[in-house]
């Protein structure tokens, strides 16, 4: 069923686009600022404290106070720093993170007197590829900061940032390949539409393992605990931004929280139906052409409801980010690399093959795409794959503690000792 609302005239399109850019950018920045407060308050609650609650009611004005403080603080540039790169780095870490919100569908299209307004800043066909491309630009900011500061700790932080982000970029990209295989499109509006009607399931169910891998990679990509190797304050002072002060430092912080927000919004969009409200069918609609809606009839209150749904999902995942950060300690560097290359990458690859084979099999058995059986079989396959993955993760000691490594070391030394000089072997035997 399609509804002809009428396309926007070029002038109206321009005006609405400008309004959308301004509003979404502002709201996004407010959310990012709010996250800095939420992080500190939730951290407080988790540690049985109260967190900052003195500026404004329940501390709500704290981000503003922080902003003012950061603007009036002294800007320092190390004497030996490479000035141009030093200034460029904070911009490069913040801007790409903020740009990505442009392609996220925020709500159901809004019918107005001037025509149908899509609730997305730029509904570009390459959607998620754009997000991936810009999200991976963030590493340049971090590495540049580390390099330009001319400080060994910053440099180490930068090196870690680049190594880690490159490693997890691979897993991140591979983890969303099954989404594209199911949806058949990389446009995010189409991904949402497929979850509403075309495929009919929120993809977190038929692609559970993908979601799990995506979450882990997203944590690594946004350099949050347990993956905050680039910062690692106990080892590297403050990592890549150790030499930064005032607003330049704040821009790194904003960049991190913008990454968190974007990642949360992506989790919601790719795997949890985007702005889709579960069960209710009245919001299942997509803009197929300018001014033409397929599915339910659009209405302003539906736009508001779906907008609320989208933000609820996004904020929930942002909360999970914060929750995990204040629960787990940091990985060791080799554990991060092990997890990235030896666990995430093969698992993601294997999962892509499993899903591909399942889809092919379902197709050749004549199961219609979008039927309950199709989604059900995929869900069962996914649950099994996840169970196997978790079982392996649990039992095969893929992520091991230091004592397990010590055991390995002793075993290998004993093994060598048998072939080599006898005293060595004997000494090791006693030592153990």
């Amino acid at each position, binding site marked *: 069923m399609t509804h002809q609302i009428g396309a926007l005239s070029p002038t109206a399109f321009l005006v609405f686009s400008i309004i959308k850019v301004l509003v979404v950018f502002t709201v996004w920045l407010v959310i990012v600022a709010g996250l800095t407060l939420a992080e500190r308050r939730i951290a407080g609650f988790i540690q049985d*404290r109260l967190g900052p609650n003195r500026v404004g009611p329940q501390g709500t004005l704290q981000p503003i106070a922080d902003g003012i403080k950061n603007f009036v603080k002294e800007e320092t540039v190390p004497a030996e720093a490479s000035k141009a790169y030093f200034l460029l780095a904070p911009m490069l870490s913040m801007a790409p993170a903020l740009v990505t919100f442009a392609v996220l569908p925020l709500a159901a299209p809004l019918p107005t007197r001037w025509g149908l307004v899509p609730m997305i800043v730029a509904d570009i066909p390459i959607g998620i590829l754009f997000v991936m491309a810009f999200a991976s630009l963030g590493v340049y900011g971090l590495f540049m900061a580390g390099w330009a500061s001319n400080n060994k700790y910053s440099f180490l932080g930068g090196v870690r940032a680049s190594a880690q982000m490159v490693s997890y970029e691979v897993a991140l990209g591979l983890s969303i390949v099954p989404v594209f295989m199911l949806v058949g499109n990389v446009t995010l509006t189409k991904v949402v539409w497929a979850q509403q009607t075309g495929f009919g399931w929120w993809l977190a169910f038929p692609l559970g393992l993908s979601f799990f891998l995506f979450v882990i990679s997203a944590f690594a990509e946004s350099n949050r605990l347990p993956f905050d190797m680039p910062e690692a304050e106990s080892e590297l002072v403050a990592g890549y931004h150790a030499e930064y002060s005032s607003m330049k430092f704040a821009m790194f912080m904003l960049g991190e929280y913008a990454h968190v927000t974007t990642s949360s919004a992506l989790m919601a969009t790719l795997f949890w139906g985007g702005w889709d409200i579960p069960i209710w069918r009245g919001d299942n609609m997509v803009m197929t052409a300018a001014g033409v809606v397929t599915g339910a009839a659009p209405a302003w209150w539906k736009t508001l409801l779906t907008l609320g749904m989208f933000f609820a999902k996004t904020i929930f995942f942002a909360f999970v980010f914060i929750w995990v950060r204040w*629960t787990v300690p940091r990985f060791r560097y080799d554990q991060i690399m092990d997890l990235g290359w030896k666990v995430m990458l093969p698992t993601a690859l294997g999962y892509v093959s499993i899903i591909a084979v399942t889809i092919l099999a379902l197709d050749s058995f004549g199961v219609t795409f979008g039927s309950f059986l199709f989604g059900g079989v995929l869900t069962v396959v996914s649950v099994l794959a996840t169970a196997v993955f978790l079982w392996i993760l649990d039992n095969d000691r893929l992520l*091991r503690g230091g004592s397990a490594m010590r*055991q390995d070391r002793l075993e290998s030394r004993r093994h060598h000792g048998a072939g080599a000089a006898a005293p060595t072997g004997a000494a090791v035997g*006693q030592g153990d």
Partner: protein
Amino acid sequence: MAINVITVRRPERDTSYLRATLKGMALTFKHMVSPNKVALEYPDEKPPLSPRWRGTHRMEVHADGRPKCVACGLCPTICPANCIRLVPGEDDQGNRYPIVYEIDEFRCIFCGMCQEVCPVEAIHVGQDYENSEYTRERFVYDLDRLMAQDHPVTALWDPSDPLSE
């Protein structure tokens, strides 16, 4: 093996990071929603002070507004931080009184010896700690300022009740 090295045997199998993470998340969630917070909302709530807690000085005054101090000079003598400046004076009746009595709260180590040594119970350390200022000069309290303090004073140690019970 070297002396006193203790090898801690940690589990080497079934040490799943994932399981531990989920367990930890349950724990942190429990703490997050728990209403028992240990934070003291400082400017609104204040920690209880012990009766012998020593803080900002206070000079006791007579009913007619004169300081009780008789300018005997014991407190600047006993003061280990040398933070009390006293210039004694004498009126027509031969009563000694302080012309200048200043305490540098920055130098003071709040040992309370001035209070212990005072023969007329004039100078006291007190139950007050909120004495931040914008300049260093403001930390030198003169006589008027010491007399204007109105916080409770510190209880002296009582030998018959050594633990203040």
